[in-house]
């Protein structure tokens, strides 16, 4: 029925448009220019609009930087992040400079040289010098950017093994994350999806002694100031481990181990206390308060007020609950970290526990969605059925 109504409305609209255009045509004087080719009047009005348009581009640029510029992520919480941000700001500065000039010229020329019957265009087909200039300028600028970028890139990607980074495995599956700490020996036990059975959800090889002291957790804790080397492993499809606050990202590929290393530099507490984050949390909570007023009016449960935590999110389309695949990250002092890690059971002890009393519960890996966000779980539960 609705479809029918929509079709009728659309048809009526079309008829209206047709009739209006007819009236428009009839009302034109017979001597009016009907060639449908731009005349001087069109050239003039569109030329002026071109000028207005470049002003619009400038205004929207300034507005976006003013209003949305604050959305740029807070100060990088990793050692290489500072370099990343510097390179980013230099690049943005450069492209905005080029953008403002070229858009200005393009639209200004469109305005300035708008056609007139009496005007003669200049036959100007070539100028080798000019073309050489605007080939060489991009070459030099880009060469600078490439070299700068490549140095930063190799700094970030070539992991310095001499620093003895702490090895942590990030394990991805539809639609959650796990972290496996390599324990005292700083070596991860071998693993393969073929070992997945019962409580051994990550498929760690039980016969590999390196795996004994591994610790599997649902929340990623990192000691501040200590280099970490992440090894990524996926159980099912492609995922991407995106750590926006640490300027780090790496795809998680089934059948292959990928890696990325960084050194966290700002603890969660420090980040929460930063001026940026105080403002940000305030503005988020304002939005949530507003939304709560609506929710109360509809008699629905309200949203909790927000407190900042680092997070890791999936950034490669991985299935229907892709939009809610996240893990909380806590950066803390080394003492706090060690205390926390101490409490976590080792893989060896988990296996022993499960073998002792006859296997009680086999939790399939899929339904684990234990992150603390209160509003997500229902949505995912519904989705999994589909």
């Amino acid at each position: 029925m609705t479809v029918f109504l929509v079709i009728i409305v659309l048809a009526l609209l079309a008829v209206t448009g047709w009739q209006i255009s007819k009236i428009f045509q009839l009302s034109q004087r017979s001597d009016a220019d009907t060639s449908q080719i731009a005349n001087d009047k069109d050239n003039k009005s569109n030329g002026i609009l071109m000028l207005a348009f470049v002003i619009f581009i400038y205004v929207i640029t300034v507005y976006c930087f003013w209003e949305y510029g604050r959305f740029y992520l807070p100060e990088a919480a990793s050692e290489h992040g500072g370099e990343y941000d510097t390179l980013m700001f230099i690049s943005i500065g450069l492209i905005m400079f080029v953008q403002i000039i070229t858009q200005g010229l393009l639209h200004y020329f469109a305005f300035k040289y708008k056609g007139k019957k009496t005007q003669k265009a200049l036959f100007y087909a070539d100028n080798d010098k000019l073309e050489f200039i605007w080939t060489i300028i991009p070459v030099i600028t880009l060469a600078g950017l490439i070299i700068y970028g490549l140095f930063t890139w190799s700094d970030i990607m070539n992991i310095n093994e001499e620093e003895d980074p702490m090895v942590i495995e990030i394990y991805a599956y539809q639609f959650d994350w796990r972290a496996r700490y390599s324990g005292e020996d700083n070596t991860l036990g071998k693993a393969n999806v073929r070992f997945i059975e019962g409580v051994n959800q990550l498929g760690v090889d039980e016969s590999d002694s390196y795996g004994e002291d591994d610790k599997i957790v649902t929340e990623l804790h990192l000691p501040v100031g200590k280099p970490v080397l992440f090894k990524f492993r996926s159980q099912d499809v492609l995922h991407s481990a995106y750590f926006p606050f640490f300027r780090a990202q790496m795809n998680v590929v089934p059948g292959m181990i990928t890696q990325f290393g960084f050194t966290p530099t700002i603890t969660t507490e420090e980040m929460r206390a930063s001026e940026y984050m105080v403002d940000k949390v305030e503005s988020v909570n304002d939005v949530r308060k507003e939304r709560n007023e609506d929710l109360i009016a509809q008699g629905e449960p309200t949203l909790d007020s927000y407190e900042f935590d680092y997070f890791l999110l999936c950034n490669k389309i991985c299935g229907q609950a892709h939009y809610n695949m996240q893990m909380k990250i806590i950066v803390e002092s080394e003492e706090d970290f060690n205390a926390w890690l101490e409490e976590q059971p080792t893989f060896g002890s988990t296996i022993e526990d499960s073998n002792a009393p006859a296997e009680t519960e086999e939790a399939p890996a899929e339904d684990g969605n234990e992150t603390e966000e209160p509003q997500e779980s229902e949505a995912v539960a519904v989705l999994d059925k589909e």
Partner: protein
Amino acid sequence: MSAIANAPAHDHHDDHGHHHKETFITKYIFSQDHKMIAKQYLITGLIMGIIGIAMSILFRIQLAWPEQSFWVFEALLGDRWAPDGVMSPSIYLALVTIHGTIMVFFVLTAGLSGTFSNLLIPLQIGARDMASGFLNMVSYWLFFLSSVIMLASLFVESGPAMAGWTIYPPLSALPEAISGSGTGMTLWLVSMAIFIASSLLGSLNYIVTVINLRTEGMSMTRLPLTIWAFFVTAIIGVVSFPVLLSAALLLIMDRSFGTSFFLSDIFIKGEVLSHQGGSPVLFEHLFWFLGHPEVYIVLLPALGITSEVIATNSRKPIFGYRAMVASILAIAFLSTIVWGHHMFISGMNPFLGSVFTFTTLLIAIPSAVKSFNYITTLWKGNLQMNPGMLFSIGLVSTFITGGLTGIILGDSTLDINVHDTYFVVAHFHLVMGISALYGLFAGVYHWFPKMFGRMMNKNLGYVHFWVTAVGAYGVFFPMHFIGIAGLPRRYYTNTNFPYFDDYADVNVIITVAAIITALVQLVFLYNFFNSIFFGKKAVQNPWKSNTLEWTTPVEHIHGNWPGKIPAVYRWAYDYSKTGEDGEYVIKGQDFVSQITPLQEGEEELNH
């Protein structure tokens, strides 16, 4: 003076084809005439475009007002995909996937390059038709068939393909991972395989035609830039599309015959799969080996059209013809060795990342040269603001805005944190989506008189352009900022991350701009279809253009020119050329058609 004048009226040897009576079927359906095939491509492309854009509006509504109930979802998606009018996450991903596929391949590859290559190659090089009219017809009908299959996949019970337009396995290979990877994905692959066949037949035809069928005097350096663009586009297509076909075939093998090209070590729905030893990264390489040149397959024809339209409407030669041709060649060559910039963080060796950063930033150079040349072409011109011209200027504007952010994304270091965020979405929509669409519109407004013998309404064209131009920036400019703030693309809703809550307003603005922009396309559609039947009758050369297509009669005839094919005596850009005395070469006329021999005392420019 003109070549037509001294052609004998009844040259039976050259002048074949329009003697026999054509039936409705041979004229309109299984036509082998390149002009009719061009129109078929255009109209099919427009219909696919309507569907593709409508899909984007649906998922934009979901992004702006997440998980709200809308009657439009219920009406279009039905109970299964939108229970109680709330869009389900699966169909969201399906819409995103099919929107991408349709827009990139069916609208901007077939609809743009298919239409204008077919229309303009024979007309602008002075040929009776394509080298093989039959293959050309087969090419269109394969395209039509692939469109039908793609649309049919929307009605499959388990849903259409949902793995993103890049269909990375294992997600696209395993129906257990997402429901769209069942029959929907099979149909997607079949459709694309047929599409590739169609594209290859078309491209080979274009290449052969440009090389062999140029009229007398039409040397390669006298070709209009449109033809250069279509020619080079066809070459990139022939080089890269087969690689996508092989990727698709291997994926079909993995899906249906248990091979392990792309799959390894997978545990899903409580079971270990037997696949062992494959790598999804291999698929990424194969996909992007086409995927990146594809960007230029989409963009180069648009740039070619723009070159022609800007020169004609500026009443000036295109600035730096040789540099423009060289840039097209450089872009084409570089486009085949930059694919890795889509994969900086895919897990491939970081050293490869460095190489691809280098080649990627190189491609900025010919692109910059092209932009500067366009701007210089406007300088001291006598700009005729026809709708086609407006869209061409708009294209240069979005090409610059979108291209510049490519410098950030092409830099492997910076890509780390903006990869797969809305920053990428903003970048490629501006630089290839909107720019190529503007190229399509510029072409339609400019060559409508050639296609249908009538003019489109210019005032509706102005409304169409200005609302679209403002709307497109309104949609994609703010998107950069939420992208750089870390908001991932392809998220059904952002509400699970309170951190993103204060971007919600931006999403509303973007959606409103998108809806307005989409609605104003209806003005174009009305103008287009209305003008086909009721538009003002066109004159032979409405834009006072130099190129050969405007020397053919308004009424289409099979074989294009009555009598002999005209010979060519000069390049296509002798606009406002003056002699020593400061007068136009031909008194009182600011253009000199390519078929006009050099005048007394006139020097041919050694461009």
